[in-house]
């Protein structure tokens, strides 16, 4: 009798334990989980606000399908205008006032850096930060922060390797945006070229986001006699660069950051014929690339866009990005089951094995581990032929 009571109590406790945990976890109830996010819906970075819209729409779709393990997702996204002090304020509000379970897909390096220490001190997961800065994969110092996309330094190393293999005598020039994003490419190139950097890189020029055009910079680079150009620029300036390089009659080998290789946002405005021969990398399928017209993965994405974001511009690759990131976090939630404590969320985020997305290129998968906080680490090289991006070579990693 006594033994049975003990066993029953133990069993009840074991069953009730995780449920009780979930109910006590911040931001979690039996029927909902609250997720926080900061995005630049105004100001200089507002083009990336589309990612936040994609995230919100994806969670809406999941809710319409019944939620994750019976819980609806309550997505709270706030505008930080790409201003770090504002990010601090909004993040504190999300954590302390709205009591979200975790912060997801915060955009921008300076903005996310501003709250990284705070979130780690408060033990709130900062999942799938929406930038390619390399600093987000540091579990030893920042256990609660994880990036998502392949980082810029890895990408730059891939370009450096490509040049060393295909054009070892290249005279390299670099145009870079004067902020963390651009600087990461310089660092990556230095790492990839090693002691050949000083000999091979003949000139590098920067530009500010407030510069109206980069014509002067391109002219300087041509004058340096370089025959290779690395473009570490955001979409508008990448389009200006590609067009200007063509117009002044310069024909270097051009390597373009994957942040700015969208067909709709960059290659078409620049002039499709002006970018022929440009090499870039990718991990996502481009919505306007004719190669994926009949692809079932992209078809699923298009159905999602038609139903949940009917007024959005479907050539904007940001919507593909958001779809992918949101699906990844839903996978994490699925893996958590009923234990949605912050500890377990972080544990499951660091336990993604060969997770594939319908919108990701074949061969590229998401993998994380307790010491591997870089979910996507592989990229595919591709070359522009005037109409599409043609994939070539193997899927590469940066090392």
């Amino acid at each position, binding site marked *: 009798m006594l033994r049975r009571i003990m066993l029953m109590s133990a069993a009840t406790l074991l069953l009730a334990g995780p449920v009780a945990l979930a109910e006590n976890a911040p931001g979690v109830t039996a029927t909902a989980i609250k997720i926080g996010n900061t995005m630049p819906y*105004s100001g200089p970075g507002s083009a990336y606000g589309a990612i936040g819209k994609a995230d919100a729409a994806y969670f809406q779709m999941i809710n319409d399908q019944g939620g994750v393990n019976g819980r609806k997702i309550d997505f709270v996204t706030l505008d930080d205008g790409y*201003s770090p002090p504002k990010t601090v*304020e909004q993040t504190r509000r999300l954590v302390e006032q709205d009591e979200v379970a975790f912060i997801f897909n915060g955009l921008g390096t300076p*903005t996310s*850096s*501003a709250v990284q220490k705070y979130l780690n001190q408060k033990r709130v997961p900062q999942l799938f930060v929406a930038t390619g800065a390399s600093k987000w994969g540091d579990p030893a110092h920042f256990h609660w922060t994880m990036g998502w996309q392949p980082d810029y330094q890895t990408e730059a190393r891939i370009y450096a390797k490509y040049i060393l293999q295909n054009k070892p005598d290249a005279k390299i020039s670099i145009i870079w945006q004067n902020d963390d994003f651009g600087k990461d490419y310089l660092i990556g190139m230095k790492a990839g070229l090693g002691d050949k950097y000083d000999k091979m890189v003949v000139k590098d020029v920067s530009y500010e986001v*407030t510069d109206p055009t980069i014509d002067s910079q391109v002219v300087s680079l041509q004058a340096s006699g370089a025959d290779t150009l690395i473009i570490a620029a955001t979409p508008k300036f990448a389009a200006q660069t590609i067009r200007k390089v063509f117009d002044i009659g310069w024909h270097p080998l051009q390597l373009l950051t994957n942040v700015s290789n969208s067909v709709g946002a960059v290659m078409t405005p620049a002039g499709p014929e002006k970018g022929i021969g440009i090499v870039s990398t990718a991990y996502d399928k481009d919505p306007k690339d004719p190669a994926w017209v009949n692809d079932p993965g992209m078809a699923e994405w298009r159905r999602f866009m038609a139903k949940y974001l009917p007024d959005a511009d479907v050539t904007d690759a940001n919507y593909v990005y958001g779809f992918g990131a949101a699906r990844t976090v839903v996978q994490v939630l699925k893996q958590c089951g009923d234990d949605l404590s912050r500890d377990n969320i972080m544990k499951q985020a660091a336990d993604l094995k060969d997770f594939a997305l319908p919108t990701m290129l074949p061969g590229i998968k998401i993998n994380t581990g307790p010491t591997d906080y870089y979910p996507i680490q592989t990229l595919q090289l591709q070359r522009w032929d005037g109409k599409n991006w043609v994939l070539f070579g193997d899927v590469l990693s940066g090392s």
Partner: protein
Amino acid sequence: MKPTLLRSLGLSLLLALALAVPFVASGYQIFQATMVLVYAIALFGLNILTGYNGQISLGHGAFYAIGAYSAAILIDHQIVPDWATVPIAGAICLVVGYLFGRPAARLAGLYLALATFALAVATPQILKYRGFEHWTGGSQGIILDKPDPPAFLPIDADQWLYLCCLAVTLVLFVLGRNLLRGRIGRALLAIRDHPIAAASMGIDTARYKAMTFGVSAAYTGIAGALGTFAAAFASPDSFDAFLSLRFLVGIVVGGLGSISGAFFGAAFIEFVPNLADRISKAAPWAIYGVLLILVIYLMPSGVAGLIRAMTQKINRDKETIREET
């Protein structure tokens, strides 16, 4: 009741309320209240220059940035204890402000506005410059820890920071008020309204204008240092040109040439963007712009100006009633 007694009671009540804030509000709200104090100091500084002395500055964000980075660098490299960074930031900005103010004294109106705006626009680029990267952290910026309260006090870091900012605010406001009510204040007003007459009365206008620039910059620089403690982070992108425009909006909405205006303006620039965000997710800044324009329509001289006009009217009505009885 005599007006001065009423006034003192009113101020004491406000002070009591201000002291109560850290103990009734949540951490996030204390943070917001701290930012209101920080902006109030910055706006007071700008008001000294623009409201009292008539020199338009569209570049005070630069001095805020200099103060912020001075404090951040000093702490990051552990050169002085936390509390010392605030007066040092003020001193640095005093010097920089004066040096900028001397040649700027030659410029008036639009031209001064452009020169100061140029300073604001150039600031992020200077902060990101590779040559200074070792000190400033370049584009990455500097991450700090919030200062800890002394061990014997049973309060947390947010509350401690708020109380320190409150103390600094009170000291700076009392000092500033005495400065502006006295001889120097009158000289500033004279330079603003009748510069030629002022000069012929023996006031060295160029020196006064430069000194005013310095003091104004010092106030804003101290605000920047305190703001850095609150955010625990300093990066070039935090101090863009729009920050300077926000300060201008703050002093106009608060009331030019008024001391209490700094608080109204600070509350406006801290809370109205959030309010606009709640009203419309799609185009929050459009709502902010509409609210801003409406505020100017209703109160062209700012909140403080409106209050002044109302109290004057009340006093006049009282006078009329007294005369008639």
